[in-house]
């Protein structure tokens, strides 16, 4: 028997070529204005979910955990938040890798969008009928590139410079001088401030406007000691149709929380549904959260910033101290007001007490409904204690309570601006379970005034600095500051009063090279594993380059920051 076998082969090149039919790549995207929009919206989502939604530890670190603002109240001596710089900020740690990876991801995505936009000039048929859109999209893309680089250069110092998308494997990166990066940041923010829409002209709430770019441009100039330019950029914001809210406003005026017992304009700024209103002339860039919508995300406000009152256990008579975890109980009011916080950020004594002392009773930001301090036993079945203010030291027998846990986790002042009293959409049995859908300010006019004050101070003009600080203080009904008392420390204090839970304290302190000094002085974590100031060292004013990046960069050398 004979068996004949023949074999033929295919044309290898044609066989391995794929035309994507059901997924998006750069080869089939960017054909219509909507395609470019899609790419830009991807950048918004990355910024929100990586830095503003709150549930990631590193979000808290960005907003001041482990520095002068706060520390982890649930687990003050342990990881995951910064309690020991010596062991948690190693090149192999996850914290440095987080910011590096997320920052460069935005840089790459922005570079792709910028390259595609530049490859499709205004004359191209793609833009027919939509010419104005191209400039706005390019402005948004360049804004996000600068936004990412601002974080990278502040946290790491000299970083690799990329202004083109990476298309093939590249392993020969090197650190570029930070001046080069700052030049790029400046030119990107300037372009954005010229090409983004003005206030009220943006296509949807939460999209970027000129003022957002000018605000960040002002901060960038301050970081480079270019104070006159910073003042000019701040002027562009302040004169761009924005003003601080002075009177009560918004959609929740009939809905003041009964337990909080009142409200004011500062309270209204942070109530659900008040951030996108056209009457809100103070919000400049609002991060959007939406319940019940794909991609709507959520804000872990109560989880991050509030105290876990429901965990405090029993009152001295052995009855549950605070009731309100049962949705049917009439004394449910604690839960619906405060939801379910987890004390991820316990304010330092500096933020909780020191900054308020001079105007304790008149500063509206310290009012009962804005900074809630009036924690009381509320169990009607315990008549001896019902309605009394909680005092761990005097109410309980000595030694019967863990005082560290009591003050770090269970009871401390709750900044209500991060919460959403009475308005939660998820997890109804736990009043939201610690999350809400209040839109969050990424940029608010009050901060612009304080940045301009900082620029005036740098320029040697203390009177003008005091005038700007007093715009903020007058709204808050705090006593105005005298120009002789204006110092950088004072401005940082005012930022704490106005912007705690909002500002990226890590970036502010690092750009001023004050992370070490202020952490040593103000981080009042009683059990930080690293000791005083969580063991911070002067070289921690820059984070280390992640070791895995140095290892993977096989054809080049990324030199590590000093001290690591």
């Amino acid at each position, binding site marked *: 028997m004979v068996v004949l076998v023949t074999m033929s082969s295919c044309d*290898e090149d044609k066989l*391995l070529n794929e035309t994507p039919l059901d997924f998006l790549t750069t080869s089939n995207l960017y054909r219509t204005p909507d395609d470019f929009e899609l790419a830009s919206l991807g950048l918004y989502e990355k910024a929100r979910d990586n830095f503003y939604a709150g549930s990631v530890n590193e979000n808290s670190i960005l907003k001041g955990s482990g520095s002068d603002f706060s520390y982890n109240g649930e687990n003050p001596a*342990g990881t995951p938040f910064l309690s020991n710089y010596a062991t948690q900020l190693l*090149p192999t740690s996850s914290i440095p890798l987080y910011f590096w990876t997320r920052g460069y991801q935005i*840089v790459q995505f922005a570079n792709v969008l910028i390259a595609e936009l530049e490859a499709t000039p205004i004359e191209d048929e793609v833009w027919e009928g939509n010419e104005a859109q191209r400039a706005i999209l390019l402005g948004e893309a360049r804004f996000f590139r600068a936004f990412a680089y601002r974080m990278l250069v502040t946290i790491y110092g000299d970083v690799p410079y990329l202004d083109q998308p990476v298309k093939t*494997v590249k392993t020969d990166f090197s650190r570029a001088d930070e001046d080069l990066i700052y030049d790029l940041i400046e030119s990107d923010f300037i372009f954005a401030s010229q090409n983004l829409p003005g206030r009220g002209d943006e296509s949807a709430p939460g999209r970027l406007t000129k003022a957002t770019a000018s605000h960040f441009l002002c901060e960038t100039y301050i970081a480079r000691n270019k104070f006159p330019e910073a003042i000019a950029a701040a002027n562009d914001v302040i004169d761009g149709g924005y003003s601080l809210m002075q009177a009560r406003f918004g959609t929740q005026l009939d809905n003041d929380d009964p337990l909080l017992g009142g409200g004011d304009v500062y309270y209204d700024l942070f109530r659900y549904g008040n951030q996108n209103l056209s009457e809100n002339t103070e919000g400049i860039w609002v991060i959007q959260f939406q319940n019940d919508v794909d991609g709507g995300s959520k804000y872990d406000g109560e989880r991050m910033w509030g105290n876990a009152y429901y965990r405090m256990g029993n009152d001295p008579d052995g009855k549950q101290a605070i009731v309100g975890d049962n949705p049917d109980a009439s004394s449910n009011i604690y839960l619906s007001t405060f939801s379910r916080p987890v004390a991820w950020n316990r304010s330092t004594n500096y933020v909780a007490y020191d900054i308020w002392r001079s105007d304790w009773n008149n500063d509206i930001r310290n009012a009962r409904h804005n900074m809630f301090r009036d924690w009381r036993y509320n169990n009607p079945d315990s008549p001896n204690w019902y309605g009394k203010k909680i005092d761990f030291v005097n109410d309980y027998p000595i030694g019967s309570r863990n005082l560290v846990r009591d003050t770090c986790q269970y009871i401390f002042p709750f900044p209500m601006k991060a919460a959403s009293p009475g308005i939660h959409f998820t997890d109804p049995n736990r009043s939201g379970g610690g999350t809400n859908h209040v839109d969050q300010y990424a940029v608010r006019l009050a901060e612009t005034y304080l940045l301009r004050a900082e620029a005036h101070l740098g320029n040697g003009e203390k009177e003008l600095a005091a005038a700007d600080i007093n715009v903020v203080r007058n709204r808050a009904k705090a006593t105005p500051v005298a120009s002789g008392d204006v110092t950088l420390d004072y401005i940082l204090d005012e930022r704490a009063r106005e912007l705690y839970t909002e500002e990226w304290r890590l970036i502010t302190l690092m750009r001023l090279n004050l992370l070490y000094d202020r952490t040593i002085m103000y981080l009042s974590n009683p059990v930080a594993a690293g000791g005083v100031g969580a063991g911070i060292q002067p070289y921690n004013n820059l984070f280390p380059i992640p070791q895995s990046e140095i*290892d*993977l*960069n096989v*054809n080049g050398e990324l030199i590590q920051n000093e001290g690591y």
Partner: protein
Amino acid sequence: MGNSELTWETTTSLNFGIDYIFLKNKISGSIDYYNANTKDVLVSRSIPNITGFSSILENIGEVENKGFEFSLSTVNVDTRDFKWQSTFNFSLNRNKLVKLYGGETDFDIGNSWFTGKPINSIYGYNNLGVVYSEEEFFKGEVPNGFYPGNFKIKDIQTNEGSATYSPDEDRKILGTSDPNFRFGINNNLSYKNFNLSFFINSIQGGGDFYKGEISGFLAGGGDYSRRRNQSAIFPYWRPNAPTTDTHGMYWSQPVNGPLLKYRSFVRLQDVSLSYDIPSGLINKLTLKELSFYVSGKNLATWTNWPGWDPEVGSSNSPVMRSFILGIKATF
């Protein structure tokens, strides 16, 4: 990140084998030797996150796999009522990275690829597996930043005046997760209408081979180790109850390496006992065949691996042990 240059892997291999039968099938088996060389290996390569991506698919380098396999089947007992057969299998494979990026680079630490070594190499600081004691601490024999209850890390390069540990000088290849060799023994015994079979499986390490990381099982300071009660297996080091090979409660130390143990094991993997009802009885029930059986999988494992199961390694889930009771009927 896309790669427009993806192409096929090509493998050239040389096989040499002998099949043998002796004594009218009472002894049979085979011996095989192979040497396979794969070029343009398709792998997911980690790249610096500066690119905006964490990995890319690429055809890289050249890998050599050589080894030998051996099997021996014997009929040990063959009488009218009782029969016993067994089969013994053995295999050994050695894997080596022959070339990396076109031969210019010898190694890629970020991907743990080193020419001349197995592809699955483990690289890092050398964790010695013992912890510092209080006596050593108070005598000043402990490096800066370390405390009692921290693991000792070998200081490979001692330089005067510089930091004790540096990523360039004190990290090394610590072994591989590849097995040293495997063997299995299958036994089949039948006595009258009873039939028993059982299979013993083993993977062995030793030397540089079959290492796994157990750092994830050590009780840390965080939430999960409390929820999983990890301290019941690995008690914390405490000043009043010090251990030698587990760390203290808040154990972050400035420099750390993977804690490696061997995953070698022997496992009673498949056991099955069945009874065939004699044909005389079942014919009355108009059945052709009726048998009862009970079988079990993963009944017993002998190993020094302290985690859940040596074959799953560092994963946090055990291997399922199962029992099946059954009736088989043919109509």
